[in-house]
């Protein structure tokens, strides 16, 4: 083994350790302190208690934010999945300039600075008089749609077109072909798209920042305003841990349903 090669290995090894500590340590600290029995932040906590979780569900604004975020995530993920699936079915077998443009349009919210989109929607809603809840819901749909579109598109493109043609030559109309042939073959992609849209909606910050209204605040924004105006109370650690646990469960769900390969490829 040449010296240059082992220097390369040493650099890689230390970069890996540094990277994983930097990425995971802040999350672990939050989870550990959520179980602290103390009034204020102390690390490591001197004992174990669930008082901050009890406090989380006792505080009206936290509980309401949690339910609002759950409702938004469930509804927006479902709408986004329907829209994304329709778009993917339309574009899966099309080539050309128009198809390329449509695909870029459907994927655009993925890389577009969402804070600008949030501001644009806020001003549009203001001039049209759109109420807070539908406004938030529509924003979360736009943000979730590209994730669904992309996972379903990959599933449809991996499909053998002969299967759909066989269905049609046997006399099935487009709707029957979709429900009897296509959907059973792509449901894994549809479901993982839904779960991604759910996760993205549940953690969404940049549009909710502008679109949340009095009494209608999502959980991430509630955590943010607590951190800004009430200091570092440990109920935030509990709120954060609930968020993290929910995501761990969902990721485990995706893993069971579609396998790790698809989760990683779809990012």
């Amino acid at each position, binding site marked *: 083994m040449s010296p240059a090669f082992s220097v*390369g290995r040493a650099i890689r090894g230390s*970069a890996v350790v540094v990277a994983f500590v930097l990425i995971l340590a802040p999350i672990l600290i*939050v989870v550990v302190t959520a179980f602290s029995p103390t009034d204020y932040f102390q*690390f490591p906590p001197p004992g174990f208690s669930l008082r901050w979780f009890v406090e989380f569900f006792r505080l009206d604004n936290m509980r309401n934010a949690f339910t609002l975020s759950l409702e938004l995530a469930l509804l927006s993920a479902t709408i986004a999945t329907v829209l994304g699936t329709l778009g993917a*079915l339309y574009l899966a077998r099309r080539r050309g300039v128009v198809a390329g443009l449509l695909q870029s349009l459907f994927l655009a919210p993925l890389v577009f600075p969402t804070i600008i989109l949030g501001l644009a929607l806020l*001003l549009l809603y203001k001039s049209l008089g759109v109420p807070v809840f539908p406004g938030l819901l529509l924003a979360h749909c*736009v943000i979730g749609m590209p994730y669904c579109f992309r996972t379903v598109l990959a599933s449809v493109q991996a499909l053998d077109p002969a299967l759909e043609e066989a269905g049609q030559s046997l006399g099935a109309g487009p709707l029957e072909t979709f429900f009897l042939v296509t959907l059973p073959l792509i449901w894994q992609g549809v479901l993982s798209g839904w779960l991604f849209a759910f996760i993205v909606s549940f*953690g969404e910050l940049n549009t909710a*920042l502008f679109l949340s209204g009095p009494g209608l605040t999502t959980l991430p924004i509630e955590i943010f305003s607590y951190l800004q105006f009430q200091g570092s109370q440990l109920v935030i650690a509990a709120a954060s841990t609930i*968020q993290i646990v929910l995501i761990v469960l969902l990721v485990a769900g995706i893993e069971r349903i579609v396998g790790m390969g698809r989760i990683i490829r779809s990012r």
Partner: protein
Amino acid sequence: MKGLRNLWAWALLTPPLAAAVVLFVVPLLYLFYISLHAASPSEIYGSTLTLENYTSVLSDGFYLGIIRRTIGTAAAILALCLFIGYPVAYFVALLPTRRRMIVLLLLLFPLMVSNVVRAYGWVALLGRRGVINTGLRDLGVIDLPLDLLYNTEAVVVGLMTILLPYMVITIANTLAALDRRYEEAAQALGAGPVRTFLHVTLPLSTPGIASGMLLVFLLTLSAYVTITLLGGPRSKLLVSMVYDSVVGFQWPRAAALAFILLAIALTLTGVILAVLRPNRVQGIGR
């Protein structure tokens, strides 16, 4: 039959296209329209058409300083992400498939946790009563807590680690798809490990580097919550100015600032693509 096919195609396209146009294209065009109008005390925007929202920002030393700081901070985050992320991606790419999947999943999971939670983790680490300060005090290194939070460095470190998994994942995916025979060929022709890396591996991984850099850069520009929690009032970036204008009901000003932010995003995207030229590499990765 053809008529039914056409009807089906339209039924598929109309809902997602309508959603994208009404909820994405139209709001942005409207925002641009607002940015070209004078402010109004009672309405969202006044009736006079003007470029003043743009010219006043771009001729104001305060805003130009903020723009410079925004680009500098983003550049520092990009450089750190690349220098830490590349070796990690190289390590990940060489792992056997199953272990690679597990490591990538460990990297992907933090990306799904809301950024406000991850920023809170950094507040808990760096704050005056945080893990680092209490640790150093207990060890007797310091008497008074250090001010680790509310400066540009905290923003750079926090955002860098929050976005680092994007860089690692995109580069690792490209490197894992890379045909190892290119490297073997270079070494068989007498190139050492360093030369092989600089002339073969690195250029072939530019598609992954480019998409990783674009993701990190674009997400840095709009990371208002992270920037506010870690940078405090003294380390504001351009996105904070957008938010402050909204809070102050200066809608046309906020709209113009948003489009200046977008112009910076597009310009630097062009620069990154022009420098890295990821399209040189055919057929692998993204």
